[in-house]
């Protein structure tokens, strides 16, 4: 097995782990973290495609690599916006959950 394939499998597991966290964690900040794990896994899959495309003296296909860099920046922007929404929710309601009913103490 090539090293690239190994990291590809690693990326596949990461997506699963992140998805699990996204579903089961009640706290939004943990959901944001989990979402970033999914992102990391997806980017790794791109990395594997890039690595396998190594040719013409390049260590990898530069197109997926550039896509990942773009993706990292967009993921950061989305994370920052999500965090801002969450902090505002906390400011407004004094709590940081997504439940809409009033069962909170």
């Amino acid at each position, binding site marked *: 097995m090539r090293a690239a394939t190994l990291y590809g499998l690693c990326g596949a597991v990461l997506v699963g782990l992140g998805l699990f966290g996204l579903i089961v964690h009640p706290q939004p900040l943990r959901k944001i973290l989990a979402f*970033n794990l999914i992102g990391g896994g997806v980017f790794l899959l791109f*990395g594997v495609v890039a690595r396998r495309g190594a040719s013409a003296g390049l260590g990898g296909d530069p197109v997926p*690599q550039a896509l990942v860099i773009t993706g990292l920046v967009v993921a950061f922007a989305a994370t920052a916006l999500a965090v801002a929404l969450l902090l505002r929710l906390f400011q407004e309601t004094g709590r940081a959950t997504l439940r809409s009913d009033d069962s909170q103490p």
Partner: protein
Amino acid sequence: MAFDIGLATLVLGVAAWTIAARDTFAAVIGFVAFGLLLALVWVRLAAPDVALAEAALGSGLTGGLLLRASSRLAPTKGPAVIEKPSAIMRLAASVLCTLMSAALAAIVLLLPEPAPTLAPQAAANLAATGLGNPVTAVLMAYRAIDTLLEVVVLLLALAGMWSLAPDHLWGGLPGRRDPVDRDDVLTFDAQLLVPIGILVGIHIFWVGSVAPGGEFQGATILAAMWILAMMTGLVDAPAVSWRWLRLALVVGPAVFLAIGLAGFALAGAFLAYPESHAKLVILTIEVPVTLSIAATLALLVVGPAERAPQL
């Protein structure tokens, strides 16, 4: 290969910790460690440009952002635990996620052989761009429109965040100002780090045309240094309505767009560069774009206005 197995295991272990940790703060620390390890993985995958972006953005800046958020949300630690989903729900979720991972793993194992690649085309046209780094060539020349749109997406995210400020604070200053303590270690740290860090940021940006690096990675370091100066109180955060700030934010996309439109006249297509001056044109775009990205990233971390504008 043994090294790769160890590294992959470590990545998965840290990721699992990020999900499983009871304490949010501990999970965030785990995430920072995760980003650091991913940077190592990218080096192993022969993608140093991505490794730079991952180290700077994925680990560093995102880490700083989440650490701030988790400390602000610290008072909410307790009650959220009650809302844990039921065991059945968790079981269903784990089955779903296992299936998801298995499907992706199957795809990875069944990838076509030989792998499709654009590397030869990217390498063959590299000379025409005047650049030495194929990834920068993709970002700035072959797929420049993606990069242009991405810079706009960053601005939109910032606009979205700013509009979260309460009405009476619109146009105000983000965050609180920390008082400067001249004897504090942090202040000393920032005074030493910020100037060197700015140099490193410019260096990473500058070598991006021929070696791993580029405007996103350089801009992230510049943003981190600005945030560092703001966190230690060396400089205050700028008012959201400050004219020069707005100018710094839009100058990058504006120049990018203008040159893109000029491409119709000079080379016959949107974002086409005249071949003889490609490198010069790319640099003309990159400098203001780096400035704008750095400013946008930093402001995305400091958040919306929380203090009334000073008139």
